[in-house]
């Protein structure tokens, strides 16, 4: 198997000397501790000169038994573990987990909660895409772009910190609601972000989108066709850059997405550059979603009512009404809690990285019998050998960056 140009005929020379052509390949180990893997992946590359003949990815360097923990923590406790799953957009994982739990329990959220969750999920998408595009820039030599992106992430961290007290691992959602409602200060900070961010985004686009070096290094590299994207179960920006129009926000509208006006960013080229462009465009669409949702934020309670016995009642309700006291007592007692059907269900959201879903098996108590996470990163990392075959060694980091593989979500 030779993919070298004709004038550099490895196979012929090999046969002359009585050796097999594979003797001329050399093997390069890449990772598991390498800056361009961003986290803990390992690649064993087979090289012919500078061309990658084959890549053998290996994972599991961060496997911490998330799904096993999910069988031992209650639905509200496990949200802390989902924070640490796709750790560049933790709040989107919180939303995904409780979306799946509420699908199993059959809870209808309040209108305000739908909007609040939509806003935080979209802010998480922006911060995710900032880092993933920033990392592509970093790997292909554009450090300034990365610093611009990280500064904006700090602004979003600040919003989340005002919202729930934690800047990074938020654990924001609860069964049937969220831990803290929006305060006027949070809304003010989001408004300020909406006002300042487009300008920075324009600056960032000017830095990179038509930058000759960046375009040369990403255009035509790691092409994924539409058929292969579906065949290999790609989702999210990776699939949308290849012409798959699937987006759960449009196709299975959950939360408040049905009420909001936004477009799905798609491209047909399927290369690293297209994935970069899709992410850039998605940030703009997310901004639109956040702006609309914030202006139309319904009033009323953010958690479901106490009659459903799902969300903890407020202090006011506990002290002033008998229903509130009973509900608080029931939810706090170890042998009470939720009534969970003996059933299994799957529900997914469009997380920044692709379809992030949970397959939950209920067994009567408030701990899942099985909490399977459907991680987009695994399927995207499995794409990697297919995408890199025939490209040069320097393209490895560009392809790896554009797939946005997060090790904690990959290995769980």
């Amino acid at each position, binding site marked *: 198997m030779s993919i070298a140009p004709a004038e550099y005929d490895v196979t012929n020379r090999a046969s002359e000397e009585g050796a097999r052509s594979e003797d001329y390949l050399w093997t390069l180990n890449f990772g598991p501790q390498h800056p361009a893997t961003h986290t803990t992946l390992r690649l064993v590359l087979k090289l012919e000169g500078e061309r990658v003949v084959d890549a053998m990815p290996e*994972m*599991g360097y961060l*496997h911490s*038994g998330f*799904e*096993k*923990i999910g*069988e*031992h923590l209650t639905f509200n406790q496990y949200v802390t573990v989902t924070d640490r799953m796709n750790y560049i957009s933790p709040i989107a994982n919180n939303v995904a987990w409780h979306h799946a739990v509420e*699908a*199993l329990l*059959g809870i209808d959220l309040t209108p305000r909660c739908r909007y609040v969750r939509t806003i935080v999920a979209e802010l998480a998408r922006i911060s995710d895409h900032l880092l993933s595009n920033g990392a592509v820039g970093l790997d292909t030599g554009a450090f300034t772009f990365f610093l611009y992106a990280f500064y904006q992430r700090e602004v979003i961290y600040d919003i989340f910190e005002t919202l729930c007290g934690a800047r990074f691992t938020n654990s924001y959602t609860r069964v049937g609601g969220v831990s803290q409602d929006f305060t006027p200060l949070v809304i003010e900070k989001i408004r300020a972000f909406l006002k300042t961010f487009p300008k920075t985004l324009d600056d960032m686009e000017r830095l990179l989108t038509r930058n000759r070096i960046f375009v040369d290094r990403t255009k035509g590299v790691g092409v994924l066709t539409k058929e*292969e994207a*579906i*065949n*290999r*179960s*790609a989702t999210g920006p990776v699939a949308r850059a290849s012409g*798959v129009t*699937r987006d759960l926000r449009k*196709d*299975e509208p959950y939360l408040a997405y049905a009420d909001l006006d936004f477009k799905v960013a798609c491209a047909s080229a399927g290369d690293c550059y297209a994935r970069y462009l899709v992410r850039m465009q998605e940030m703009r669409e997310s901004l639109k979603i956040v702006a609309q949702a914030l202006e139309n934020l319904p009033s009323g309670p953010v958690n479901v009512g106490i009659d459903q016995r799902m969300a903890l009642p407020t202090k006011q309700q506990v002290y002033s009404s008998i229903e509130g006291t009973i509900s608080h007592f029931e939810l706090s007692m170890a042998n009470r809690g939720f009534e969970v059907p*003996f*059933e*299994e*269900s*799957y529900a*997914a959201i469009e997380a920044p990285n692709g*379809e992030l*879903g949970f*397959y939950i*098996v209920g*067994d*009567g108590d408030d701990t899942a*019998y*099985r909490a*399977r996470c*459907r991680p987009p990163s*695994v*399927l995207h*990392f*499995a794409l990697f050998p*297919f995408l890199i075959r025939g490209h040069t060694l320097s393209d490895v980091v560009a392809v790896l960056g554009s797939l946005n593989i997060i090790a904690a979500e990959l*290995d*769980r």
Partner: protein
Amino acid sequence: MPHPCPAVDDVVAELVARFGPLETSVFRGQTRVELRPADTSDALRLLKDRGFDLLVDVTCVDYLEYKGAKHRYGLVYLLANTVTNQRLTVRAYLDDPDPSIRSVVPLWEGANWLEREVWDLFGIRFEGHPDLRRLVMPEEFTAHPLRKDYPLQGRGERHNFPVITRDHS
């Protein structure tokens, strides 16, 4: 409750016509079909031809301690149609000893790593899989940690390493 979409009903009816009486159920709008393990590969090929072209997930549940469970392992295939956005869940049950099933990698390349993960964590063999190695646990690991008879804290494997001190580093 009727099936959410008539097309899913038609496909299920076709499955029943081809593979005999099947148990189907609907929960919160999700249609589930239970297949015999020997039929899954053919049935999934049929479903792929009928438009369920995206394999969303392959996973497994160990029903060792589950109330009223008749089988030990339940395999779950989640399918979706990328044009009409319908979903279908296919389940198949397996038992000890030597739980094994035909691989679906010939149908979907995406199943490759998902099946390797199920082999790694549950010990279910996929016949005809091109490269059935452990995915996340180390090669020398012997247990299948997501089985219910494996403890959460493990059996001490995590402490079984040499210690490096300042004196010999």
